């Protein structure tokens, strides 16, 4: 009963919050551009936008680090751009064109992208999440360093983390990688918890969370690349033999190397699929939640009754989607880790005797 009451209170607050938000945020006679809002969130930005109060933007300025064509580094806060309205030191944020939303500089009347390693919103979220992850895991590890084997098993948070880690370690890594799983366990565990914490933090709507980190292709690209290297650098001779000289009828591989070509493409499609799966899932989740939230503001122009009923619908769907995303956050981390483990396990094959060989 208590729980039900909590949920009811939360619902009321959310509804109330939605109403006040619409009263404050929406300027009179201006349509809400859902697409822009959603894409602005899914993409990256040079400042961490928190809210817009009337006409003032409340946001956290982030450091911009760029290297101009002339070869010197510039470091300054993104607040110099005045939310993209002004230019600074020759740099400005492009409004349109191929580099829309990015810092560009003008060279000979052409917009050119400088080398840009700014701490953007996604980068800051990434660093924060990494820090949180390292703190959590090292904190848990610290508990073990102080104790001996004979001590009782940990309880509370450390116990829960131990259970979590060992679940991934035993059920996923041990069973998927095979014999020498110990060598790959730290990497796979890091991948899992890295993705998981970034997914979870993405679900928190206010400052330290809320950034679309794992729904960014650069992040998943690096993760997939790491798995690609882990698979192929530690592949056994048997693994390479099965790629270039698989056990198929000779005409499939001799004059025209059909099977080897397919296998070779397979090397790259596996991590590519990993990259796209994680990226698409997380991005889609963020997009759906944002679109549902925008429903409140879109329906303002349709009259009060529609707006109120659609707000209720929107809140309900948002809650549902958030719960679903919680599940997806875990599932995607799990799937990425599991597939990585399976690919590593497949690349670690030992020479197995075929039935014909065994009979001879």
């Amino acid at each position, binding site marked *: 009963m208590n729980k039900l009451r909590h949920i009811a209170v939360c619902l009321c607050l959310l509804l109330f919050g939605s109403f006040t938000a619409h009263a404050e945020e929406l300027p009179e006679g201006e349509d809400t551009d859902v697409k822009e809002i959603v*894409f602005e969130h*899914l*993409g*990256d930005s040079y400042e961490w936008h928190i809210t817009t109060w009337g006409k003032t933007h409340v946001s956290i300025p982030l450091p911009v*680090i760029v290297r101009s064509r002339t070869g010197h580094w510039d470091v300054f806060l993104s607040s110099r751009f005045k939310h993209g309205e002004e230019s600074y030191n020759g740099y400005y944020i492009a409004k349109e064109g191929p580099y*829309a*939303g990015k810092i560009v500089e003008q060279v000979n009347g052409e917009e050119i992208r400088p*080398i*840009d*390693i*700014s*701490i*953007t919103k*996604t*980068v800051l979220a*990434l*660093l924060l999440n*990494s820090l949180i*992850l*390292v703190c959590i*895991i*090292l904190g*848990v*590890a610290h508990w*073990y*360093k102080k*104790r001996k*084997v*004979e001590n009782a*098993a940990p309880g509370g948070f450390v116990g829960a*983390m*131990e259970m979590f*880690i*060992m679940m991934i*370690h035993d059920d996923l890594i041990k069973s998927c990688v095979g014999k020498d799983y110990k060598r790959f*366990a*730290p*990497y796979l*565990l*890091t991948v899992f*918890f*890295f993705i998981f914490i970034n997914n979870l933090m993405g679900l928190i709507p206010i400052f330290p969370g809320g950034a679309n980190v794992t729904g*960014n*292709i*650069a*992040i998943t*690209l*690096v*993760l997939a690349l*790491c798995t690609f290297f882990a698979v192929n650098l530690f592949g056994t001779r048997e693994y390479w033999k099965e790629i270039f000289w698989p056990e198929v009828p000779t005409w499939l591989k001799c004059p025209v190397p059909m099977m080897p070509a397919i296998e070779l493409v397979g090397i790259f499609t596996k991590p590519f699929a990993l990259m796209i799966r994680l990226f698409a899932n997380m*991005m889609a989740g963020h997009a759906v939640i944002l679109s549902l939230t925008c429903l409140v503001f879109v329906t303002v122009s349709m009259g009060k009754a529609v707006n109120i009923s659609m707000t209720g619908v929107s809140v309900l769907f948002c809650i549902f989607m958030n719960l679903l995303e919680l599940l997806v956050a875990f599932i995607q981390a799990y799937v990425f880790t599991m597939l990585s483990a399976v690919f590593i396990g497949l690349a670690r094959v030992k020479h197995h005797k075929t039935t014909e060989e065994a009979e001879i």
Partner: protein
Amino acid sequence: MGLLQPETGLLFWMLLSFIVVFVILAKYGFPVITKMVEERRVFVEKSLEAAKEAKAQLDNIKTESEALLQSAREEQMKILNEAAAAKERIISQAKNEASIEAQKQLDEAKRQIQLEKEAAVREVRSQIALLSIGIAEKVIRNKLEDAPSQMSMINRMLDEMPDMKQS
């Protein structure tokens, strides 16, 4: 589309932070935890094994002691039975002996009494004989004043003599 183009800056930071996180966690994080858990698993297994062994030993001891107790109880029973039997035997023997002894004594007493009686009878007889002889003398002295009666008397006596001898 912009979303599908990886940003160089983000790639750089992601690579950097992921490698740093990986190195830190792979060195100081996960191996510590997994190693400890594995060790604990082994420890628990060992402890279970030891506990099982101890329990088996305890069971063994218990059955042994039980058997010992049982045998002791049986021994006690046997001893008690034997003691009871011995008691019976001794008592019956004693009774037997006592009765035999008593019989013997009784017999002895009877014999003694017989002897005494016989002796007494003999004494009485001799006394009676002596008395009767005395009486007879006195009677005879009175009666034997005349000759014929003396003679008849003597003859009767003589007639009676062989009878006396025979009896």
